[in-house]
């Protein structure tokens, strides 16, 4: 099967020299594409997970009785909600990145402890997390106070009430807004190309720079892979949303 694919694309290259699907018949290029694909997927998944965690923790802190955690979260939200993610990415990598400590594996090269992939994950998670805090907060506020009082009267501490009663309800109610935000996040991860994160588009760029005959196939693949990834995400999110929808709520 694999051999058939290899020979098919090699023959295609013989017939049409501008359609060299080199990543299908050359092992090194295939590995490049695969590594780029995994970096894109890894970036998206890690950013989604971290931003949701930040959202949950932030929403919890926003309801705190103490002033300081509330102020910290408010400041964080104002900064990250009101600046474009591209600027945040560049700021984290170039400005904060200058001050990261480095270590030297060979006595001369300086390797920073947070690589550009690390900064991309940090920056994008914080960006999406700021919106998630507000989304979860508005979900929590949709749970009436009487429900929390009832939980308190049953002897639950504030944390227990949050974990077992309030948050599950809040999550279900804020799911559509959350989905929207996460799809936006996945689309925003492509901007990490600016700080040379070796994601899918970066690898394809490298391939068509090295092999000009692979230009048209690379472009076609990038186009369909991106549409495919975002499309799959949107469809699965919509399915999940529809399953958890509360009929008549919020129409």
């Amino acid at each position, binding site marked *: 099967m694999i051999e058939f694919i290899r020979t098919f694309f090699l023959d295609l290259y013989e017939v049409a020299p501008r359609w060299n699907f080199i990543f299908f018949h050359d092992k090194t290029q295939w590995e490049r594409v695969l590594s780029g694909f995994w970096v894109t997927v890894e970036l998206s998944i890690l950013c989604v997970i971290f931003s949701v965690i930040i959202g949950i923790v932030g929403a919890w802190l926003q309801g705190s009785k103490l002033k300081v955690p509330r102020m910290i979260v408010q400041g964080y939200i104002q900064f990250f909600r*009101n600046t474009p993610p591209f600027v945040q990415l560049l700021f984290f990598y170039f400005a904060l990145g200058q001050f990261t400590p480095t270590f030297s594996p060979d006595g001369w090269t300086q390797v920073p402890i947070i690589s550009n992939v690390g900064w991309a994950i940090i920056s994008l998670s914080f960006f999406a997390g700021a919106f998630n805090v507000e989304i979860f907060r508005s979900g929590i506020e949709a749970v009436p106070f009487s429900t929390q009082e009832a939980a308190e009267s049953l002897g639950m501490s504030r944390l227990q009430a949050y974990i077992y009663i309030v948050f599950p309800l809040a999550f279900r109610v804020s799911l559509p807004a959350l989905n929207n935000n996460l799809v936006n996040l996945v689309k925003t991860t492509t901007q990490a190309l600016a700080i040379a994160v070796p994601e899918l588009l970066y690898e394809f760029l490298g391939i068509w720079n090295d092999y000009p005959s692979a230009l048209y196939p690379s472009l076609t693949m*990038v186009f369909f892979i991106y549409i495919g990834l975002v499309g799959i995400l949107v469809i699965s999110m919509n399915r999940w949303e529809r399953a958890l929808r509360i009929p008549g709520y919020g129409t």
Partner: protein
Amino acid sequence: MSARAIPGVNTRPTTDLPVLLPLDKTRAAGPDAMMVSRWVAGLPWWTPVALLALIFAWPLTASAASKFTYADAVTELIGWLPFLISKGFLFNVLISFFAMLIGTAAGVSLGLAQISNNVLIRRAAKFTTQAFRNSPWLVLLYIVLLTVPHEISFGAFYVTVPGWMKAVFGLSLPIMANISEVVRGAIQSVPTAQWEAAEALAFSRMQTLWQIILPQIFKRMIPPWMNWYAILTMATPLCSLLGVDELINLSRQAMEGSDNHPELLVPFYGFALLIFFAYCYPIARWTMSLERKYAVKL
């Protein structure tokens, strides 16, 4: 999804023990496109001054072994300025201007097609809008640059299509999709009462649209439209990856002409940042003031 009356959710509660309160939609909204203009407009007035100071007084961390000082680098930059501005930035502005022109014209038609009564037109328009909104701008640019011919001939007479014009077509595609969404959203924000009243007064659909609905929303569409212009201008450096001669590419060629000393990086790219900011800042301020002015509830 018709409005079934659910007590406590969308009608008055019958008891004082509600189960779930309604969700605060504006708070739970995600990042909106207007964020870019809002952020640029919100920067303090002294930002370009600070940028200029940074370019001229970048901390000298250059290695002592280099004879090419930072002052030399800034002098080189000043020597290249006329070329960079007249052949470089001018083309960025030209590309953004024409791409906005074409994108707006196509976007308005696509937006109107999205609310068409004909199912086929509506579906096709919706599909086109979503496809071009979600594709990476770089890929669309490449596809257009490779498929549009470099010259169109009418017999013996021929017209060359320069690279920057192809970039205009390429960038107008995502703009068309986004303007189409702006138009559709604005039309759908008009209360249905207006449509019904127009129908009662025997207006045809076209008449309603052009004489009643569009004049109401026209002013309110201007801030998002200007916002997309700012985003487009800041995206024109993407064309540099395609070999179009605009500011970033010419900066690189100028650096090469000055022997590619690493000391040139901060002055040249700093200048690019400064000139883009100087262009987009007044536009963003104007956008936000118009948004405040036109924020009238229908």
